[in-house]
């Protein structure tokens, strides 16, 4: 079945709403407007205003309401329009959703799912182009996932809803229009394990989300130069599937981490650190990183492109890791 990432997300929402009456979707413009990225288009007509709820422009309020609903036995899906606006809900997410199980001595789980768009690349300028999933991956008590394929767009939501604890799903804005084949009977997928998207023995390219397609393209270019790169899609950013990372490094002995976040204090830094902590003696080159330039994301297209990780950057980093080969 030919479909898009956007349609796969919508199919996942429809499936969840149909399966479980406790599931409902709320967020800014998710109802009548059909969602800022049109993910929920048509769902209001299909499921009605009780289950597809437009909210006021107050992230703190509606994320808090979602936490309350989850505590009350519902299975809320809260859509925050983009990660940029999630900053207004940080207190709810970090101080409440992530901690209540602990603060209540194990009595109050928060089975909340929050979806949000992340990433740059669409000329939306510095305030609407953040990649802050690494921040959320810093917080114990949250599970962070980043679907980068049609299967994961279709399958991660239901598994996230079944998780008794809060799960944040980051959808990169550059992926919504991605087209491809998806099985008719595609369904839930795990949200624990990283996956090798391309096997290779020369260098591991570790990435997730919006940079997965770029990384796969880089691997293709490298193959043309006689270098077989393995592309590991992290899928789940917290908790990290360390075993998969170390296993890949043990195969290739070289790692490049590709992350659209800024380099300093980033998820890429965490991955590089863990590789050297736990797989040091497998390394045949220093871990390389491809990250976004440490600037507010520029508006002009050429500057935005220059700031973000690109295919050529990944190829270059891989070649650096390979030394003179």
């Amino acid at each position, binding site marked *: 079945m030919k479909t898009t990432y956007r349609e796969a997300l919508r199919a996942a929402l429809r499936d969840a709403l149909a399966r479980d009456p406790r599931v409902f979707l709320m967020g800014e413009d998710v109802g009548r407007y059909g969602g800022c990225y049109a993910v929920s288009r048509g769902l209001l007509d299909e499921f009605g205003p009780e289950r597809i709820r437009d909210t006021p422009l107050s992230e703190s309020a509606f994320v808090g309401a979602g936490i309350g609903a989850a505590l009350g036995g519902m299975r809320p899906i809260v859509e925050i329009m983009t990660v940029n606006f999630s900053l207004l809900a940080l207190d709810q997410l970090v101080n409440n959703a992530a901690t209540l199980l602990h603060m209540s001595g194990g009595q109050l789980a928060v089975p909340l799912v929050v979806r949000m768009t992340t990433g740059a690349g669409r000329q939306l300028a510095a305030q609407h182009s953040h990649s802050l999933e690494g921040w959320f991956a810093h917080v114990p008590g949250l599970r962070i996932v980043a679907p980068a394929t049609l299967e994961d767009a279709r399958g991660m939501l239901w598994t996230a809803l079944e998780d008794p604890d809060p799960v944040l799903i980051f959808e990169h804005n550059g992926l919504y229009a991605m087209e491809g084949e998806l099985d008719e009977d595609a369904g839930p997928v795990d949200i624990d394990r990283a996956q090798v998207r391309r096997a290779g023995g020369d260098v591991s390219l570790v990435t997730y989300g919006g940079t997965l397609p770029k990384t796969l393209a880089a691997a293709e270019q490298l193959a043309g130069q006689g270098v077989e790169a393995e592309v590991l899609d992290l899928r789940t950013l917290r908790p990290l599937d360390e075993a998969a990372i170390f296993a890949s490094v043990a195969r290739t*002995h070289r790692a490049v981490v590709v992350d659209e976040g800024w380099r300093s204090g980033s998820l890429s830094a965490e991955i590089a650190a863990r590789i050297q902590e736990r797989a*040091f*003696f*497998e*390394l*045949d*080159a*220093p871990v390389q990183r491809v990250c976004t330039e440490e600037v507010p994301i520029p508006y002009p297209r050429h500057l935005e492109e220059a700031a973000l990780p690109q295919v050529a950057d990944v190829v270059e980093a891989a070649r*650096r*890791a390979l*030394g*003179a*080969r």
Partner: protein
Amino acid sequence: MSEFRMPSLGADMDYGTVIEWRVAEGDRVRRGDVVLLVDTEKAEIEVEIWEDGVVEHIQVPAGQKVPVGTVLATLRPEAAQAGAAMPAAPAPPAPPPRIEKGPEPARAVLPAPAPVSAPQEPGRRVHATPLARRIAAELGVELASVVGTGIEGAIQAEDVRRAASARGAPPRETPAVSAAPEERPSTPQAERRAAVRRRIAEAMERSKREIPHYYLQTEVDVGRALAWLEAENLKRPVTERLLLAPLLLKAVARGVTAAPELNGHWVGGAFRPGAGVHVGVVISLRGGGLLIPTLRDVDRKGVGELMGELRDLTQRARQGRLRGADVSEATISVTNLGDTGVETVFGIIYPPQVAIVGFGRVTERPWAEDGLLGVRPALTVTLSADHRASDGQAGARLLAELTRVLRDPERA
């Protein structure tokens, strides 16, 4: 207690044979004393020690061949002896060697302390990846002998494996080359000549295999230089008279300051500029073969001083009596075939250096200058340089500055 180790007396030295100890256990030594005669396969070299102290225990007796970095002797500080438990005993029997615990005095400072010998720069920590180190340990490969091709010239696993397989192969290959001379009853001199030949072959083979040479040539009118030498020599006693050679060396050193990218080493895929200008002087040996001892800090020495050092160095090289300091790593080399009548010589770079300057014979040539034709003493100067480290522009700068110095020798 400190350790005196087999020094690296050249980038291509992996082993040295102790020929003769010039000190005995219990002897007091001072920094700069010659303590040992070492055969490097190229030459017998008198090795100095770079620390004051008392020789405690000689661990490698004469006749033994050991890898660079092997502890040859232990040294204890003089103070420790003075304060040792034998205050009045006039001639106490040498105490048995013992391991002293407690704070270790400063380690012996030697030209090449750790077992750092070949491709990587001496004195620099060997950069090898964790995997490369692991595999080197498994295969028993000395990392210092491996050329790194990894990031920033680091040794990576593949380099170690390559070195290991190369090490496995040669014993089967080399006999073809060396068997013939060795079958005959050979004298030590003949053996040394054969070893020198092998070393030259290895270095030159590696140079032509790895180094993309570019070549430049220029003619210099040395009339003023010769006139200056003549005037200068009138002021000097006969034993201190100058030849053209030290002036040429000086000119090379000045040329190098105008083109620093020609002074240093190409190591592990990157250029490392030399600290100071140390010129390797190609000296041919009477029995065939050649040596390239080093004149240090040529840029900071006067022509007269260079003359003395050059004379001394040539003499000792030809007697096979070079010292450790003479064979320290040069940053550029000079070859001069002028006295053989050759007009032009293009040298082959001695790796890991990146340039060699060649001088031919001074001959009178027709010379056009300022629209007039005259006859001048002219010298052909050539430069062979490593195109990985520099471009022709840099080479041209070196030759231009060198020419300026030879045409205005007072400023040399």
